């Protein structure tokens, strides 16, 4: 018998048991959690007709802008949407926002995370220039992790390269 070998294998087995136990005991998320802004996530409440509701912001003001391939520049179309977002945020001071940056699937995971962060940050800077207090605007990048359109061509990619302004209560 070889003790060293024996010990190694025994430890491996104990480990297996520990993993099985731990798989379902992860605690919940931390304190800065917010609901995702994608409609499928059901994170938006309120009546669309009420101009101060998040639903109005999402659907009438427009909660998202789109980007060109590998770009984080705000297009003129995007700028007009962001102008409306800024106006709404100035009138509805009870809300803060998390700005999500997203990328299409044509890129490596890490690069897309960084690219999404650039996009979210550009949106944030634009809104700050339009008078929104910086402390009301957080940013997060989802890289290519949260596509909303799932085909593998430009018609979907163009929808996925987006910045989404997700409201949260201040």
């Amino acid at each position: 018998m070889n003790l060293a070998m024996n010990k190694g294998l025994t430890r491996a087995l104990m480990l297996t048991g520990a993993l099985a136990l731990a798989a379902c005991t992860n605690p919940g998320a931390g304190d800065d959690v917010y609901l995702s802004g994608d409609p499928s996530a059901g994170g938006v409440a309120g009546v669309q007709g009420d101009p101060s509701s998040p639903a109005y912001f999402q659907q009438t003001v427009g909660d998202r802008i789109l980007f060109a391939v590998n770009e984080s520049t705000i297009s003129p179309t995007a700028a007009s949407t962001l102008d409306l977002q800024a106006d709404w945020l100035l009138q509805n001071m009870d809300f803060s926002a998390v700005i999500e940056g997203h990328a299409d699937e044509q890129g490596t995971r890490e690069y897309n995370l960084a690219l999404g962060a650039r996009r979210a940050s550009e949106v944030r800077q634009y809104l700050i220039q339009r008078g929104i207090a910086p402390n009301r605007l957080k940013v997060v990048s989802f890289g290519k992790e949260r596509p909303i359109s799932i085909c593998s061509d430009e018609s979907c990619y163009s929808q996925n390269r987006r910045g989404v302004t997700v409201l949260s209560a201040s």
Partner: protein
Amino acid sequence: MIRRFLTCLAATMMLGLPAITEAAPLRIEITNGVIEALPFAAPDFVAESSNASQLAKDIAQVVADDLSGTGLFEEIPDSAFISTITSFSSPVQFADWKAINAEALISGAVSVQPGGGLTVKFRLYDVFAGTELGSGLQFTGTQDGWRRMAHKVSDAVYSRITGESAYFDSRVVYVSETGPKNDRKKRLAIMDYDGANLQFLTDSRAIVLAPRFSPTGDRILYTSYETGFPRIYVLDVASVRRRVLEQQNGTMSFAPRFSPDGQTVLYSLTQGGNTDLYKMDINSGRTQRLTSAPSIETAPSFSPDGRRIVFESDRSGTQQLYIMDANGGEPRRISFGQGQYGSPVWSPRGDLIAFTKQNKGRFHISVMRIDGSEERVLTSSFLDEGPTWSPNGRVIMFTRETQGANGKASLFSVDITGRNLRRVRTQGGGSDPSWSPLQE
């Protein structure tokens, strides 16, 4: 050629069997050229206790699968055997194995001890030379650890024939994926390199990305969105306890990797939309900024000696690979071919860098020398990315994602020669593999 004996294996040489020191012709040179797979026979191991017959069969099969899976060896099926092995100590009838062209023969025996312990022993024969190659080895452990003991046998056989270290007794941590593309659930999972013994390490409530083993395999770094924002966590494999490493407000952190001594974590931190490289002493939490450029710097990986870092940056306008000193300084660009280069990983041998290449709408896993020369494309598909090296630097595992609305991610492996592309067995989809070192 003198055989290298594997002193690294914690195993006992069997008494009364002097090591063969004579030269023998059984050898695969896997450094260059086209390889013809070496035919081998691995008959069922001999059950030396009445309750070991199933294990004796299963262990021989795992050994055969390990060796065949390399593409360097070809299993001769049992149905071709002229004789079989019924006693571990009886002389081998070399003529019977030569007749079916088995160049290598692996014989083994398995016994379950009264206390429940398992003993596995094996011998490797060079059939055409009519000699034993190396000495018999014996492994002891518990019955539940039988697959590891089988992998140890495979590791020894592979090493004796190729003269290189092996990779079978190793694990892979990866991201298990289920659900459609627009509602994908991701969990960290760990398994043996061949897909056996799967265990989940996290639930699917938060997105998890890119787990990375520590140099001894005891800890895993990964990125999780459990707070809603990407943060780096370190998870202890034995206890499955985890803690957040980096949580400055208003920042994101991702793409972590351990230093070769396991003390330092390299990673990317994004602040104000700009992503740069940092490193952190994992015990003190002290951080050091390594790059300060308006461009994206990410996906860093240490050289095996810990003195240099390879990473990707778009400072030139497109994603390219750079090497710099581990303490920062001026990076030197090493990629100059067509397309974009990302997710570089330094090989455990130190001589190559594996990376993801994106060119003309296709993705490739490729390797190059550390000076950027001899770039070699190993794979091509709609989306291949995220290479990780086998412990011996011979094989690369990576993510392959298929195209379209029903696209799914799976793990694949390929030899660094570009041969032997294989899907790695996982339960459901999988991405972002990280290969552990050989287990002790």
